[in-house]
């Protein structure tokens, strides 16, 4: 093989290696960390309401409280599920229903249940959960963005692999592909940022639209405006789910 052909074949890989340098001082990890802020990750105590609507069905609504890696989400609608409470202790998940004798522990694998996974109700902490590398640079919705490939650091996260587009200007995760173990997309997501974090100008997510690749069904999660709140750690103690 001619030396020139070998050089041309290797050129794209060499350019890919240069992408992190092109990101300036930003490393893939720091890009993720900054994008997490706008999706509730690593917060020191905020609350918001979310509404989750799958297809034509009635929306489920939750009051969500977040502190660090812990999330408490209480269902307020529909009537059939009112009062159900999800507790995320980092990656572990508990559910409690009014009148039941005890909270039920769900396996991390059950975070994936439902059109929108239980894990999607919770906050995002991609910087902690995933190793990231910059695959490419693309334009999404007219905005230049890094195309990141995220690989789970541990097995018990909601998704094993994610392809994630983060805008260069304001570090917003605007698009994601959730991948199967074989690397094929099984859910696609788009994000909208219509809120700001309390006391700052940092944009905060207002909508996440998830489309199931195989069924084509779409689930929309609408986020209310976040509120800063003093939240004690005891709120996330499973023994306090029922009194």
């Amino acid at each position, binding site marked *: 093989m001619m030396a020139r052909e070998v050089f041309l074949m290797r050129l794209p890989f060499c350019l890919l290696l240069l992408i992190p340098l092109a990101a300036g001082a930003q490393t893939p990890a720091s890009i993720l960390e900054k994008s997490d802020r706008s999706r509730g990750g690593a917060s020191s105590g905020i609350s918001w309401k979310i509404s989750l609507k799958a297809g034509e069905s009635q929306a489920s609504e939750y009051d969500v409280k977040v502190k660090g890696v*812990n999330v408490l989400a209480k269902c307020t609608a529909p009537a059939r599920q009112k009062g159900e409470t999800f507790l995320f202790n980092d990656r*572990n998940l508990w559910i409690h229903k009014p009148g039941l004798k*005890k909270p039920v522990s769900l*396996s991390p*694998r*059950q975070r994936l*249940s439902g059109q929108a996974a239980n894990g999607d109700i919770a906050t995002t902490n991609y910087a902690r959960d995933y190793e990231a590398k910059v695959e490419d640079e693309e334009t999404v919705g007219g905005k230049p963005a890094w195309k990141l490939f995220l690989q789970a650091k541990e097995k018990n996260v909601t998704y094993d692999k994610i392809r994630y587009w983060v805008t260069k200007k304001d570090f917003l995760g605007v698009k994601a592909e959730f991948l199967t173990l074989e690397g094929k997309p099984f859910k696609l997501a788009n994000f909208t940022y219509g809120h700001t974090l309390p006391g700052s100008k940092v944009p905060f997510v207002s909508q996440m639209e998830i489309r199931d690749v195989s069924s084509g069904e779409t689930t929309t999660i609408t986020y209310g405006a976040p509120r800063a709140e003093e939240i004690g750690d005891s709120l*996330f103690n499973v023994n*306090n789910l029922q*009194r």
Partner: protein
Amino acid sequence: MRALFFIAAFLIAPQAWALETTTSLLFQSEGRLISDSKANPGNRVARLPARLVQVEGRVDANYSLPWLEIVARPRVEAGLYWVNGVSENSAAGFFQEAYLRAPVTEDFSITAGRLQFGWGPAESVSPSNWMVPEIQWQPSPYYEQLGVYRVQANLSAGQDFSLILINEFQPLPDRLDSRSEVVPESFRKRALAKAEWSWDSGNYILGFTGGRERLQPGELWRGGAYGSITISDAWQIYGDGVARETANTWKSFSVLGVRYTAEGGAEFRLEGIHRGEGLTRDQRANQALLFSRANDSTLAALLAAQFERLQGREYAYAAFRWANPPFLPGNFQTPILFLRALHSLSDHSTSFLGGVEVGFLGYFSTTLYGAVATGPTGGELKNLYDGMFGVAGKVTF
């Protein structure tokens, strides 16, 4: 009367408060194939209904102030029963739970009233919690266990430690009931302390319980422990046990189990139960003869209470549960498929429960369920029913 007026005035005085209520209406129809066993020949002892139709109204109300939470879950039910070819009817009113909770600080609260409070990693039994029935072997997912009258103090230190002190107090009558299959258990004063630690965000949990219960003629001590280890996203192992002092000897009651969760969310459990104070096979045979010779409502009630209390020594329990299985049509909301089997290693009787629950339109859910018992005639889990089938619906506003 004046005191009540002042309390009411204080509760409605202007301050931050919230009232949440949910109302449900249930309908249930069930057919049962009753065993013709030595313990219940011709269904003359237990007089169990072969068919029943029930309606039940449930209200869940929660009134909260910054310093007090009031929870009330009143229930009213009416039913038609067919016992040995004769129809009977019933009506009952009761509170499944009714309690006051005072959050003294963020980490400390006191609760008093009738409430449920459960723990333990196993699905079949929770030996370290002796304030709840030993087992809840009911096929309907809408079945509710009644709370216990107690005063309870919860102390937490962050998300990883909690200390709970519980003292049961003299109960009010369980139900205003015109007919009941189960006679309320005679009162036993019980107290319990529970400490629980968790590490690695709940991947490791360890708890200890200790306390005593006052029975005639003396007081009995109990000490228990439970724990779980989440090995991976698929596997969890767990155990729960208690040692109980009875007539100056100690008997144990324990369960060991493993949980496996498949990629699609289907969950499998296998549990082994040992009950040191249970009856051996020969003792059970003698007990069945005693039952058959009696025609006493208390004995009948004890027999019928089998769904809440085990009698033998060793059991194996298997369960399968799948929420949102992908093969059900998309307009079914939050469907749950479940199968459970309890096998007595003492007499080789087995009871299988199974069902499916689906929701529609955000306010309606329905369930089909059934049970089959197999094994030798007179086996513990075949003593009452050879099978049953039911359909239930629930509308929630």
